[in-house]
């Protein structure tokens, strides 16, 4: 089945976007929680992996403190693609059975090809952001900072206009990446569409639900902040919760006509 190629977002007859109130975010989180409880350790394993990567990055930041702020935000940028396995587990549960690690491996093996271009884009954005952040911090932090607490102390007490510009730039990068990715990965995993169409459809979904999507972004940011504040341990629970909830957000926001845009079946999944 060839991927749908089009200049803009997916055709309106194939894909209808629901307009939802901000309160729906709670329903996504509740569904995500139920998925996580039902699926168990394959879900928590994703959280544990992210927790360990977070600890490794934190240790790296202790060695090179200028990288810390960039790395913390870059972590959020690549979060959606690490959750591919969680989407596959939620999808399997939706069909009435609970999947294990085999479903996760399968999702990575076959969706990996379709997701490759998009994941490389996310990774590129994350690396560019780490480099720009380190460069800007290096330029506007004009005192000797020998440790992470010293750097934080300086950053939190200075009144540099460059710091304000850095935060505005960071918000714009985060908003763009969020809008480009909020439903892109579940969509690419489930339907045979081009990366470009999926990204533009994700942007259109966000523009149809601006307030709901900001509330959803705040939830993700709060979960990330809570995980960082607990020395990364929070990721073990909060990462799978947000991952499964993201699948339910996609389901809720996108009303897709199976005739116009058929689902990739499990058999096609396995034969990829």
């Amino acid at each position, binding site marked *: 089945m060839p991927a749908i190629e089009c200049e803009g977002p997916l055709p309106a007859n194939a894909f209808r976007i629901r307009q939802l109130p901000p309160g729906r975010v709670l329903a996504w989180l509740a569904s995500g929680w139920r998925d996580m409880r039902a699926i168990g350790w394959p879900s928590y394993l994703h959280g544990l992996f992210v927790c360990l990567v977070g600890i490794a990055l934190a240790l790296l930041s202790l060695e090179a403190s200028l990288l810390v702020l960039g790395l913390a935000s870059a972590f959020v940028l690549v979060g959606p693609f690490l959750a591919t396995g969680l989407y596959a587990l939620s999808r399997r549960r939706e069909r009435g059975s609970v999947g294990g690690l085999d479903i996760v491996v399968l999702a990575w093996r076959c969706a990996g090809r379709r997701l490759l271009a998009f994941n490389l884009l996310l990774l590129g954005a994350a690396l560019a952001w780490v480099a720009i952040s380190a460069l800007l911090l290096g330029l506007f932090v004009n005192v000797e900072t020998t440790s992470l607490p010293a750097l934080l102390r300086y950053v939190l007490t200075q009144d540099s206009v460059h710091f304000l510009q850095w935060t505005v730039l960071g918000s*714009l990068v985060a908003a763009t990446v969020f809008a480009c990715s909020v439903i892109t990965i579940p969509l690419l995993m489930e339907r045979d569409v081009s990366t470009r169409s999926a990204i*533009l459809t994700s*942007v259109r979904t966000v*523009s149809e639900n601006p307030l709901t999507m900001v509330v959803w972004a705040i939830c993700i940011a709060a979960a990330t902040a809570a995980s960082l504040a607990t020395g990364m341990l929070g990721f073990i629970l909060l990462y799978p919760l947000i991952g499964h909830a993201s699948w339910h957000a996609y389901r809720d926001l996108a009303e897709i006509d199976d005739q116009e845009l058929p689902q990739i079946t499990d058999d096609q999944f396995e034969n990829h």
Partner: protein
Amino acid sequence: MTWGLTGLIGYMLFIIWNLARKSNAGRFGTFILFFVLAFGMLGFIAKSVIQWLFEID
């Protein structure tokens, strides 16, 4: 450096405008505005909490 950063912000705004145009996203600007304001506020609160936690003046 102020000009360089302003240029980068301008470039990001161009990317956002281009995305909105190509995806026929009518209210994308509203989302970006809400997002930047919400995260600016969140950043301000986080900064105050961290200052209080680490007793930084």
